[in-house]
């Protein structure tokens, strides 16, 4: 069991192809690991029977030499992706026992390519949060612990379940989504690799909406190559999403291992923020050295509007959320509360169904869109958003990719930031700019801090240039030689 679950996705696919083990054996090993890891609270719904039947079907396909690129690989699915016939909640009580009658495009592509679904993964409610603590199912606990304390740490958020499950070897990879950093910050906190592709690469159809102009799906994986393999399956044009890009999807794994000699890497001076731990500064400097050694040219760049990205995000995202979440009215699906009249039923339904952070964001969104404030807040934020996108356009004249830290700290203790919304929002200070500009961003583990906790570096690429991002990440992964794992305590 331990051997099979410690494989990378690539290693497992090679083993399946070589006939070293079957998908049923591989899947069984993961099901046992999930059962043993319930204290982590990463999976909020385990679907072992479903998984074993998919695994058996995969073994049958392989016997006929009809296997797809992911055939037999057991994966976890963030509970924001609708899965046909399998409860999907966005970790909110308002969806209750929602059983989708359709499959999200992204997950349908994974199953098309032969992957096996192990179950649904915990997240911050409606993907609103940076610590997984807003989940109606309770927080996920990070498999990593500080060497100086046993206190439970956050795996980050919103894709905390996805990141923790991959880090703890409960699945070979997982789907995730990223609206302001929800793939990359959890990846950094758990020593895993996560990529948010260019906006429009992955279809949003069947993914519970948070902020539609920012939401993008992507994988969390054990290695850069695994992330590339998964992303290749997840991307592709979908007529059911009007913002889905009709562009060719390359085999991203072919970019991993390519030489990055001669590439120009931008280092944005504005990403040196106050109170950033010296260890993160040091790691960033290490990353720059690795890229120099690989033959890259390092270029200092300026992204002058960086500090305005989070405030702009906290207008744009809540505004879109207040509109998207208007659909939860208790009439067509989900929770319906009692009330004396229709308005009261709506109000009680939403008061009972939504968690505090979701209500807070809906209220902010409603406020900034309300009469008299629309121009001052919403329109202003959209203009600042263009300024931020223009910063990157200018930067691309001087560099081919950008290197930054992923998050301003290592994983923090559960409960530490939960009473201070702005402190929590600052987790996304380095990641949110790429959502606003629609750019691809990847986080990879690059080292450990003094407490033995993983730290991540982020690579930002030009629109649709995930290939270069993967090449740079592959070279950095090799140079970093990061192979630490969370010591098992669960």
């Amino acid at each position, binding site marked *: 069991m331990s051997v099979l679950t410690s494989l990378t996705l690539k290693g497992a696919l090679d083993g399946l192809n070589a006939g070293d083990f079957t998908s049923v054996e591989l899947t069984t090993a993961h099901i046992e690991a999930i059962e043993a890891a319930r204290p982590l609270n990463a999976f909020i719904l385990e679907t072992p029977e479903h998984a074993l039947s998919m695994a058996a079907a995969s073994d049958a396909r392989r016997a006929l030499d009809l296997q797809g690129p992911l055939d037999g690989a057991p994966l976890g699915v963030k509970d924001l992706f609708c899965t046909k016939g399998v409860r999907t909640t966005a970790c909110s009580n308002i969806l209750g026992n*929602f*059983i989708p*009658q359709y499959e999200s495009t992204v997950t349908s592509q994974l199953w098309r390519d032969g992957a096996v679904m192990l179950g649904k993964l915990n997240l911050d409610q409606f993907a609103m949060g940076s610590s997984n603590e807003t989940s109606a199912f309770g927080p996920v606990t990070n498999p990593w612990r500080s060497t100086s304390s046993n206190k439970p740490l956050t795996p980050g958020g919103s894709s905390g379940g996805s990141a923790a499950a991959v880090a703890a070897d409960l699945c070979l990879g997982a789907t995730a989504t990223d609206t302001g950093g929800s793939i990359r910050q959890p990846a950094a906190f758990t020593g895993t690799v996560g990529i948010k592709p260019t*906006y*429009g690469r992955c279809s949003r159809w069947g993914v519970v909406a948070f902020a539609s*102009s920012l939401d993008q799906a992507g994988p969390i994986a054990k290695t850069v190559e695994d992330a590339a393999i998964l992303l290749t399956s997840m991307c592709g044009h979908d*007529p059911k999403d*009007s*913002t889905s*890009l*009709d562009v060719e999807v390359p085999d991203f794994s072919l970019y991993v291992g390519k030489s990055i000699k001669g590439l120009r890497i931008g280092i944005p001076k504005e990403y040196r923020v106050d109170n950033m731990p010296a260890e993160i500064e040091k790691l960033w400097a290490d990353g720059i050295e690795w890229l120099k050694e690989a033959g890259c040219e390092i270029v200092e760049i300026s992204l002058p*509007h960086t*500090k*305005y990205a989070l*405030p*702009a995000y*906290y*207008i744009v995202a809540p505004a879109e959320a*207040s509109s998207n979440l*208007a659909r939860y*009215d*208790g*009439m*067509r*699906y*989900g*929770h*319906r509360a009692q*009330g004396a*009249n*229709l*308005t*009261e039923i*709506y*109000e*009680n339904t*939403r*008061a009972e169904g*939504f968690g505090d952070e979701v*209500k*807070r964001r*809906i*209220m*902010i969104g*409603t*406020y900034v869109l*309300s009469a008299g404030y629309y121009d001052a807040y919403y*329109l*202003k934020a*959209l*203009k*600042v*958003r*263009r*300024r931020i*996108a223009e910063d990157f356009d200018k930067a691309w004249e001087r560099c081919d990719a950008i290197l930054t830290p992923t998050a301003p700290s290592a994983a923090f203790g559960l409960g530490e930031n939960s009473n201070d*919304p*702005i402190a929590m929002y600052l987790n996304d200070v380095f990641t949110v700019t790429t959502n*606003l500009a*629609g750019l691809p961003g990847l986080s990879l583990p690059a080292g450990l801090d003094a407490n033995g906790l993983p730290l991540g570096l982020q690579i930002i690429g030009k629109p649709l240039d995930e290939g270069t991002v993967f090449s740079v990440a592959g070279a950095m992964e090799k140079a970093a030689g990061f192979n630490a794992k969370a010591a098992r305590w669960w």
Partner: protein
Amino acid sequence: MAIDVATVRKVARLARIAEPEERLEALAQELNGIMTWIEQLAEVDTDGVEPLTSVVGAGAPLREDVVTMGGDAEMITFNAPKSIDGFFVVPKVVE
């Protein structure tokens, strides 16, 4: 700017979220904290800048005007809190 209790009450009503009267003061403080932090956007010169509504360059795609899916009442009402014979059952709307 300052969001007062009356504003919170109004916004909660617009958002159709029941907030008990005794929560409004705390909510006003919370929202004020966030909005004050957001105020720094005023520092950015955005004169003559077009608002960025979409990072996807292309315009809205068109498709053939044909039925793609639908016509399945059982599927549509599957998750309804109340339904009868493929219809949603909702509270009385018109008195």
